[in-house]
């Protein structure tokens, strides 16, 4: 039983960076913008969070730095694609390359340093409960934040006026503009939110999960987060599920190797990706549904008619 709990704990930690990055990108895409620079924003968030944590010794400062750094990266993307109307796909790819390079430069003095342990929730009695205590009441704070964020985003899109406006902009920016909503302004807001989330996802990796800085340490997680958004059919709850499924398969395959399961390691390594592809295929088999789910204005530049 102890082992099961440990496996579950491992899954939570592997999934959390993906949850942050995916939920951020989901909001961005809901407003009709595709930002492929998630990987770049994550890695800049990772070094920002790590360097500030090391410098100040304060985890909250590190988290804030990661949020700000990710948002600044997204702001750059916003200026290029929303104000200057550059192609979103090309700009997103460039943002990733830029982010990887920038983070490498920034991180030169930080490789070889290690951070301490991120504070965890500790409720007397509850956190000490056998088995479930550590799992439910003993995680680090960011895990709870990631889940709250998913619930919050889901609520925001369903129940609030702002959520409705963003959805409307994502579906038909011309109509939204015609009835008086500032399309570009809202898109900037979602981009900043998405960037901050990606930055936090990166910081989770460098400040909580490992915790140290190494160049290129996001190792493709930004791309997985992008796939998760499609996987989730732009629904927050499903993005959470997808991230945990992905993290779960990753951890389980590592454990199954340790137990000596007689399957070639390469197949096990492929499993998370195969599962993602399989679900994507199943989801996209119903064309109508895909069309209904995907924001209709995704990747389309908006130019206000004068």
């Amino acid at each position, binding site marked *: 039983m102890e082992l099961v709990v440990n496996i579950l704990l491992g899954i939570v930690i592997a999934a959390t960076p993906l949850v942050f990055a995916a939920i951020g990108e989901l909001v961005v895409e809901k407003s009709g913008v595709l930002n492929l620079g998630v990987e770049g924003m994550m890695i800049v968030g990772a070094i920002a969070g790590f360097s500030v944590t090391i410098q100040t010794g304060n985890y909250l400062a590190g988290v804030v730095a990661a949020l700000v750094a990710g948002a600044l990266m997204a702001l750059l993307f916003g200026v290029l694609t929303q104000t200057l109307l550059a192609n979103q796909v090309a700009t997103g790819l460039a943002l990733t390359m830029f982010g990887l390079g920038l983070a490498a430069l920034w991180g030169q003095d930080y490789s*070889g340093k290690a951070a301490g342990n991120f504070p965890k929730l500790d409720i007397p009695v509850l956190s000490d409960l056998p088995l479930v205590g550590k799992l439910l009441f003993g995680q680090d704070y960011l895990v709870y934040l990631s889940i709250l964020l998913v619930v919050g985003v889901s609520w925001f899109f369903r129940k609030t006026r702002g959520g409705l406006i963003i959805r409307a902009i994502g579906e038909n920016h011309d109509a939204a503009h015609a009835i008086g909503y500032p399309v570009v302004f809202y898109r900037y807001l979602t981009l900043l939110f998405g960037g901050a989330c990606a930055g936090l996802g990166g910081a989770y990796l460098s400040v909580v999960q490992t915790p140290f800085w190494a160049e290129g*340490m996001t190792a493709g997680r930004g791309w997985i987060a992008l796939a998760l958004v499609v996987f989730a059919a732009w629904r927050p709850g499903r993005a959470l599920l997808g991230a945990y499924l992905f993290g779960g398969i990753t951890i389980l395959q590592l454990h199954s190797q340790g137990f000596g399961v007689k399957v070639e*390691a390469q197949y096990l390594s492929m499993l998370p990706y195969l599962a993602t592809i399989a679900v994507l295929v199943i989801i996209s088999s119903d064309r109508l549904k895909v069309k209904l789910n995907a924001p209709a204005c995704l990747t389309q530049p908006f130019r206000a008619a004068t």
Partner: protein
Amino acid sequence: MRYRTFAKLTAAALAAAAIVAAPAAVQAEKMKVGFVYVGPIGDHGWSYQHHQGLLAVKKAFGDKVETTHVENVPEGPDAERVTRQLAQQGHSIIFTTSFGFMNPTIKVAKQFPKVKFEHCSGFKRAKNVATYNIRYYEGRYVNGVIAGKMTKSNTIGYIASFPIPEVVRGINAAYLGAKSVNPNVKFKIVWVSTWFDPGKEADAAKALADQGADVIFQHTDSPAAMKLAEQRGISAIGQASNMKAFGPKAQLAAAVNNWGPYVVARVKAVMDGTWKSTDTWGGIGAGMLNIASVHERIPADVRKQAAKVQADIASGKFHPFTGPLNKQDGKQFLKAGERASDGLLAGMNFYVQGIEGSLPK
């Protein structure tokens, strides 16, 4: 060997920009020495150790040499471009330090017959291309002895990257070392299919620790496993460089690559005009591999025993792969007293008897 799989998207641009500009006043008699690295110096592993070699050259020859290094060069066309550029700039000797630089090095060497090339970890040579590498398995055997003595759960975890001979040889050597002092020892091996993914390496270390491993070996590049061992209060063995900063309590010992002596000797040979194309595979004896910072919490007798094994390997009195040894399926591959040839070691693609699980093909 470094089959780097993670894409270095920025590297193309960076490599071009990173050619370290030569200082202004170049004296005619200064010899230029170039280094090409696959990773950043800040990786605190593979490329970091190669850079220590460059620093050794600077220290040894001072004003007589001028050194140039290029970091983050991806394996492929960029490597060829960077190497050619160094040759054109008048470098007398160029060290290319990743397995994937092999073909680019050979290609450029043909165009610059007067320039000497040194390729690390490859197997192709030419008149002006020498190869060099370290017998890492010697260090893994010594560390296996330490791990075998220090494990309480008799379970040793091993994070492996790709099933190539170098990695398989390392697993076998570590197992034989541990088994030689602890007949009950068991290895749990997890293949992560990457050289570098700190998150995944940490996950793998976590899985091994959860399954009862209390000493962790790794054949991946980041210190994630060491850091996790420190958090969990278990032990780990440092890889490629000293990882003490990440596991002040956890690190039992580290096998540290020491390229300095070789690199300095080769630069000297070019100066003296005695350079020849050679194939060097040096280990502890040649001073190319050090067992560093053996932890003081290890009992004195264990430290002594490990030091003895290390000394015997260095002097050639003992070889980690000495028969009788069987493959996993029980077939003998070394008769009693027989030592593994370099050819056998270079192509090792099987587990030795006693290791459980199947080797990925």
